[in-house]
């Protein structure tokens, strides 16, 4: 899940973006890991994550295979955290996203004390992760740096679109959809909250951060960069 690593933005722009995930390792600790994965997410709930998810079933906002036509006028935009936890049925990474450092570091401390035995990682600004580790009394084991985007970067969209689309590192949120949502918010056709949920449903593992996305949409509403 290198998909958490290469989000676009400066360190300051990650102030509301803390991704904590637990990963069972194939052949090392994956046996009987499903209850631990569920417990990891259960422990996250009191700290009010803005999203949780797994790569098999998705995040707390999911598309529907049987949508009522009435949804065009009245639709449920609320995330379903319980469905994510109940739906975990394979040993795969699970993820909890927080929009503030206090919640992330407190969650990390609880996770360390629970001693689940799974590998736990945080994707965030380097400084943010170091501070969270200090608070939780954790000695960092390894670190993976993102060096950002290189190569034919002229093929990339503008910074706001890129910030939105790269919040699904698997690339499931298209630049065109992100641009469309910015346009719709600017036109007043949808609220930022609604636009965020449309995009979140395409994220296949739940690492999309709706709070950060809403902030970007609000900024883009006033000035498209």
């Amino acid at each position, binding site marked *: 899940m*290198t998909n*958490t690593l290469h989000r676009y933005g400066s360190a300051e722009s990650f102030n509301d973006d803390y991704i904590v995930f637990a990963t069972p390792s194939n052949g*090392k600790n994956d046996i009987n890991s499903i209850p631990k994965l569920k417990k990891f997410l259960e422990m996250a709930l009191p700290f009010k994550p803005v999203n949780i998810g797994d790569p*098999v079933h998705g995040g707390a906002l999911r598309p529907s295979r049987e949508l009522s036509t009435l949804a065009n006028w009245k639709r449920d935009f609320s995330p379903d955290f319980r469905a994510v936890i109940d739906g975990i049925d394979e040993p795969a*990474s699970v993820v909890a996203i927080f929009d503030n450092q206090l919640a992330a570091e407190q969650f990390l401390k609880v996770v360390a004390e629970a001693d689940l035995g799974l*590998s736990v990682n945080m994707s965030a600004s380097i400084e943010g992760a170091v501070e969270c580790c200090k608070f939780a009394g954790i000695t960092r*084991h390894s670190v993976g740096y993102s060096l950002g*985007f290189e190569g034919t970067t002229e093929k990339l969209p503008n910074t706001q679109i890129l910030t939105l689309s790269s919040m699904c590192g698997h690339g499931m*949120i298209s630049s065109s959809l992100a641009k469309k949502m910015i346009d719709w918010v600017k036109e007043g056709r949808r609220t930022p909250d609604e636009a965020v949920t449309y995009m979140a449903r395409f994220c296949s593992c739940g690492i999309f951060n709706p709070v950060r996305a809403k902030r970007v949409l609000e900024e883009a509403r006033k000035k498209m960069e």
Partner: protein
Amino acid sequence: MKINPDKCVACGNCTYVCPMGAIYVDPVIKRATINRDECVECYACYNGLSVEHMNPSLVRFARKIFHLGRVRFDPEPDVCPTAAFEPDELQWPRVVRRAFSDPRATHESTGVQGRGTEEVKTNDVTYRVKPGEVGFTIEFGRPGVGVWLRDIQKMTCALAEAGVAFEKKNPFTLLMTDVTAGTLREDVLNEKVMSAIVEIKVGAERTEEIIQLVHRVEKEVDTVVTLGVGTRCDEHGDENVIAPILKRLGYKIERAKTNMGLGKITNPVEAKGTE
């Protein structure tokens, strides 16, 4: 992926959600159509769009009436109203597109969803990257550009020539016919994927050399490249070996993935590894 023309009502919603921009409404047949050369079989359309099951004839009639009256039809933008997307039975080598593009497609080779491996995420139990070593993830095509596998081969050949070892459990390595030369199977070279990750490991002293090599070769590759550099922290949790090199090379490293070292080997039959 295919779109059932009997069901499609050309609402256009799907044209926006395709990460590769490969869906368009054909003005002749008046149906959404997929450019199969550019489609990477990521299934974002099929998995991401919510689905209604409306009568296509009824929807087309309603849309015509709205159109005549210049009334803007304003449907939910993440919905296919008639469930028109239908997965194909993919054959080799096209199935490679899906394996590297749809994050829910598990690579049989690694048992991991997605395009890479566990890399430093589970380094606390796999000990893959040891002290004094650096693990590189060189990703092509992300975000939202895609990459032809023939382009990645330029990089793998250059890396092989530099004598680096490719990560054996990485799905991309398994497409190679000769890991010492970095060459891929001929029959996959003309396949396009959402992204692919080449993973290598070298001694820390080769960090700058590898980054310079990637810089040089990426100019010949018609896509975006993202570099990830993974390494071990010291006994205090600090990392003062690689970060200074990156800073000296001009990188303003903003973001990282931090392994907390909380993992344990708990599987009963696994021989416990050591560093």
